[in-house]
């Protein structure tokens, strides 16, 4: 898409993808016509109806980054960075003080394995209580970090 924007001589100035507004691209151009032509050249893209987004709105969106994740014990997160990328994990202790690390037990693995993860390396997948169809054995001691283990 970027290549097209460059090579087709459209009046496109920039394209931005903001993580907190997933699934959307914002295209900066002089005229809507340019955006329309760009979009029509990309099969999976379509132009949203409505008026253009102002640069101020874009800036607000950028300021809203980073996304705050509110995590609680029992939430299921997906690990999106680092050695365990792609794994899901069950939050054992949520981050304290708003920032930092969570302790979580890896799912999708046949071992009882707790890891400490920086909050920016995880994405909330399921809130506690919404869990359905999980094949976790309930006897697993995942409170071991809290001094409950013998």
């Amino acid at each position, binding site marked *: 898409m*970027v290549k097209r*924007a460059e090579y087709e001589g459209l009046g496109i*100035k*920039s394209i*931005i*993808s*903001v*993580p907190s507004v997933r*699934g959307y691209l914002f295209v900066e151009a002089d005229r809507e016509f340019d955006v329309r032509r760009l979009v029509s050249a990309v099969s999976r893209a379509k132009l949203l109806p409505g008026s253009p987004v102002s640069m101020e709105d874009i800036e607000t969106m950028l300021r809203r980054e980073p996304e705050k994740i509110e995590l609680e014990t029992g939430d299921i997160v997906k690990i999106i*960075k680092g050695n365990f990328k792609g794994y899901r994990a069950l939050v054992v202790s949520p981050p304290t003080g708003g920032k930092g690390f969570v302790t979580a037990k890896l799912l999708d693995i046949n071992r009882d394995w707790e890891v400490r993860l920086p909050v920016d390396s995880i994405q909330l997948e399921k809130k506690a209580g919404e869990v359905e169809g999980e094949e976790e054995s309930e006897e697993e001691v995942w409170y071991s970090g809290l001094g409950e283990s013998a």
Partner: protein
Amino acid sequence: MERGDWKVPRLKACKRCKALTSKEVCPVCGSRDLTINWEGLVAIVDPVRSELAKRLGIESSGLYALRVME
């Protein structure tokens, strides 16, 4: 589009200027301090006229990360 889509895999971001590259050296500032921990993608096509480029302080065209971790 799905989550994480349009994030070109294997590109690394320069920790100094946020430029994205598939090489070992940043094409913009020449730094070798690159990371795969980045998110948000900015494609600057026309750095002279782009208001976004101005606001982000980007002076040359190319692909940039919005945020570089660490």
